[in-house]
């Protein structure tokens, strides 16, 4: 029977070489920010794992997240994911339709212990009628699927917090999974869409370590959302030097300067895009010359995409040049700044003294 085969056997049948498999495991260790020697552990775990059943639910979505995974063009990664998992229900690619498709879902739910991947938000207005599959609302289906699942992985901004369908005035009362379901482990792979490598790595982590990866306070994996884009951006040097793109196509834009003034949300976005990149690691939005829109952040559609985001906390003016350099300074301004610096130094001194005093106690 196909389901009793281990991955190692599956790979042999499909002609995927051991070298290719180990390369995949090493990439996964890298994406998960694990030491390279962990690739061996991943390989051993994956080789012996029985393919876990997975159901992939589509609600209010654009299928962009499915596309992100299926069109992953890192050699054989997508194939490997499909080999590692037993995708029992995924409307976009499954052969059965109608009653036969629903039977696959119901059989999986009855057996239990499956991983649920949710793509798209869930409409809650007017009893959830704005998304129906096989005559049932997304709200009902999600509750039924969640009742018997081992874990839920939400892919994309919509399943995370509601995404653009939940943007004011939120006509359909769209919500994310975490706002509806509780009592089940949920990991939110945010992003619009999430990077295929992050989706794969989360599944690989679950199979290798038998638990979901470490999460931040929003339930997003730390390996993907632990670092600020601004701090790892290849254009950061230009930000620090005060070199900004002022208009699309201007000299600074042609030279690859910082996109902050064009509305880049890198300073408030926590994603690993600058490190793992997109399209087989070739580029990413900022690399291609457009600002980051912080698609992994909750409610990011409510930040104006083309207006600069406030970042005063990140840029101490004593260390970095001002974004708007002061060309000429009047003696009065200089005096005011001097006084302010004096007060700040005084406060810092007082704090330091009180800390020393505390230590001595």
């Amino acid at each position, binding site marked *: 029977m196909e389901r009793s085969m281990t991955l190692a056997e599956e790979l042999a049948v499909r002609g995927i070489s051991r070298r290719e498999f180990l390369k995949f495991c090493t990439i996964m260790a890298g994406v998960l920010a694990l030491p390279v020697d962990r690739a061996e552990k991943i390989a051993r775990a994956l080789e012996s794992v029985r393919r876990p059943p997975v159901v992939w639910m*589509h*609600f*209010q979505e*654009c*299928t*962009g997240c499915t596309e992100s995974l299926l069109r992953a063009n890192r050699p054989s990664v997508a194939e490997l994911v499909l080999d590692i998992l037993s995708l029992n229900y995924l*409307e*976009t*690619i*499954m*052969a*059965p*339709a*109608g009653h036969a*498709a*629903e039977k696959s879902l119901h059989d999986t739910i009855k057996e239990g212990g499956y991983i649920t991947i949710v793509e798209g*938000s869930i*409409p809650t207005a007017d009893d959830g009628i*704005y*998304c*129906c*599959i*096989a*005559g049932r609302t997304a709200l009902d289906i999600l509750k039924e699927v969640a009742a018997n699942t081992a874990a839920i992985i939400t892919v994309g901004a919509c399943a995370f917090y509601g995404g*653009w*369908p939940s*943007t*004011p*005035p*939120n*006509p*359909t009362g*769209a919500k994310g999974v975490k706002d509806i379901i509780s009592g089940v482990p949920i990991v939110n792979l945010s992003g*619009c869409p999430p990077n295929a490598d992050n989706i794969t790595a989360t599944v690989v982590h679950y199979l290798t370590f038998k638990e979901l990866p470490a999460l931040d306070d929003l339930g997003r994996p730390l390996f993907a959302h632990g670092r600020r884009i601004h701090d790892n951006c290849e254009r950061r040097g230009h930000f620090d030097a005060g070199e900004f793109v002022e208009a699309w196509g201007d000299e600074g834009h042609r030279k690859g300067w910082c996109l902050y003034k064009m509305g880049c949300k890198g300073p408030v976005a926590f994603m690993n895009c600058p490190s793992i990149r997109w399209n087989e690691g070739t580029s990413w939005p900022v690399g291609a010359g457009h600002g980051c*829109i912080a698609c992994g952040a909750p409610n990011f*559609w409510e930040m*104006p*995409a*083309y207006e600069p985001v406030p970042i005063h906390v990140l840029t101490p003016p004593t260390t970095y040049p001002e974004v708007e350099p002061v060309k000429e300074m009047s003696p009065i301004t200089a005096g005011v700044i001097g006084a302010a610096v004096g007060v700040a130094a005084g406060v810092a001194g007082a704090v330091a003294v009180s800390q020393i005093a505390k230590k001595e106690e």
Partner: protein
Amino acid sequence: MAQKIVIDPVTRIEGHLRIEARIEDGRVAEAWASGTMFRGLEIILKGRDPREAWLMAQRI
């Protein structure tokens, strides 16, 4: 003899589709197609910065 069949969900497509058909003598006599999901992008885009419209509309 008339018979009604329903195919929901229609798979291998992007989005949510339901087909209902009335069959008479082994042939489709009448058929109805429904998109069974609504998000209201047109309502959400109203009043927003036009420069952002493409970002949201490409995610339909």
